[in-house]
């Protein structure tokens, strides 16, 4: 009886001790967070509730020594994690440069397409560098800096059943899109009859597309072109859809100090052809040289037309593929 009791008490104290240990573990962690939050809550206390400031200014970021940058972690080759757990890709290369020039440590935050605006609106990240296409709707919620990449929409489908026009999609067919992307918005608005199969991550959407659950996958054309190059059984039947857009870094609405700094950075990086170097470091394995001038935006200045971009590059470099894309885009815009 006595021995039994002893055991019970031991068990009880053990559980309690375990509890306390984990609790204190949590306590120290939240204390760390607390210090980061304090600055923002102090600042917000001085302002009205309605426009309480969720973001951190440039000085606050520098002071803290850390910047939170939202990137994709499953969108190869723009933002992904390699087998050593390191973030890699075109967006990440740029993010690393920003961190270096700011002189702060980067804390990468893995985002999904649909939560990018949320992350900025709630101040969970300072910058989103996650292949974020500039659109009017988004610009009402967040502030975009100068662009660093061109983009349009594209549709990829299996080679044996290539879809070259959206009208080929039968009523029962499903088109895969990722929730919260421009492709989803575009198809919802312009082709409400097309059935969409929506996923919240790139990884699940691509795996499902490979598994054959949809007849096509609509997304940024950069992404679908990369996909078709890497996966031999697939072809980009519609290389350009909708309007020609750009991709830019985004910050929380009103965070002008950070925005101005990024803009200045993009302009000065343009002088050293930084984004071409970025392309050559991260995208060339996927796209080859052909897409360099079509994709890259240097110094925040978008070339007025794609013809300018191709005249810029040497004649032999402007490939059939890129002129195809350009043609298709003019067709699309004339159709509108």
């Amino acid at each position, binding site marked *: 009886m006595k021995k039994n*009791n002893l055991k019970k008490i031991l068990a009880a104290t053990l559980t309690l001790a375990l509890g306390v240990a*984990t*609790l204190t*573990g949590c306590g120290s962690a939240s204390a760390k967070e607390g210090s980061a939050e304090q600055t923002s809550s102090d600042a917000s206390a001085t302002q009205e509730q309605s426009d309480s400031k969720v973001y951190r200014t440039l000085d606050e970021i520098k002071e803290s020594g850390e910047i939170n940058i939202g990137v994709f972690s*499953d*969108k190869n080759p723009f933002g*992904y*994690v390699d*087998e050593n757990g390191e973030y890699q890709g075109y967006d990440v290369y740029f993010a690393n440069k920003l961190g270096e020039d700011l002189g702060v440590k980067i804390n990468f935050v893995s985002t999904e397409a649909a939560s990018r605006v949320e992350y900025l609106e709630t101040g*969970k990240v300072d910058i989103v560098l996650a292949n974020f296409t500039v659109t009017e709707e988004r610009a009402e919620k967040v502030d975009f800096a100068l662009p660093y990449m061109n983009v349009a929409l594209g549709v990829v489908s299996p080679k044996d059943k290539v879809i070259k026009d959206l009208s080929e999609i039968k009523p029962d067919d499903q088109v895969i899109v990722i929730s919260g992307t421009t492709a989803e918005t575009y198809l919802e608005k312009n082709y409400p009859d097309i059935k969409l199969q929506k996923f919240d991550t790139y990884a699940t959407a691509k795996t499902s597309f490979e598994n054959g659950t949809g007849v096509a996958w609509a997304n940024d054309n950069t992404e679908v072109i990369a996909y078709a190059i890497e996966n031999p059984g697939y072809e980009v039947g519609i290389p350009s859809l909708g309007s020609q857009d750009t991709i830019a870094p985004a910050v929380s609405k009103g965070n002008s100090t950070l925005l101005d700094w990024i803009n200045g950075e993009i302009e000065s990086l343009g002088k050293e052809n930084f984004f071409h170097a970025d392309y050559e470091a991260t995208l060339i394995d996927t796209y080859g040289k052909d897409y360099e001038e079509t994709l890259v935006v240097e110094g925040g200045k978008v070339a007025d037309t794609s013809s300018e971009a191709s005249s810029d590059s040497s004649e032999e470099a402007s490939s059939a593929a890129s002129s195809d894309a350009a043609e298709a885009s003019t067709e699309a815009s004339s159709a509108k």
Partner: protein
Amino acid sequence: MGFEVLLKGNNMLRLLTGLGVSLKISFVSVAISIVLGVILGILMALKNPVITVISRVYLEIVRIMPQMVLLFIVYFGTTKALGISLEAETAAVIVFSFWGTAEMADLVRGALLSIPAIQYESSISLGLNRLQTYRYVIVPQIIRRMIPLSINLITRMIKTTSLVMMIGIVEVLKVGQQIIEANRKASPTAAFGVFLVIFLLYFIACWPISMLSRYLEKKWEN
């Protein structure tokens, strides 16, 4: 079959670290739930009408709201409504403790009320004072009833933490997706191997704990 991708680089280690994130969140939440749940359970056993009404509403919310909905409300909703920005992990701990506290409180209340009044009376008549009655008679019985159920709660917490991927925490499932994505070209069937391994990892984490809970429950049944 896609298992080979886990042998590349640190991939397997990353997966385990991801599982560690889930385990950490569940253990912290269980610890908080036990402390708060015991307090609330005792309060509920007092049968104060105000506490009864409040706790009934609280338990009903927990009973019918999916944890995923609560996660979204706490993670995205609170920032909008209150202007506080929560870290994803903090939000997860809050939600899981909110849920676990309700479960624990209900168990504690049930255990307290299940002890017949005659035990208090006979203890007193045996000459034990109030403190001794609790110390030697009531609390040991309650602990016996509580421990298996609290251990059981741990496994349910661990399983539920798989949801935190949805609010952007990089845990085992998200790491799995990253591995599949980074090796799409080299290992096209990675999805099979990686998800099967994650399935088994969860099993390995939960099964011994639920066996322990069942063993204790049987042992202390009488």
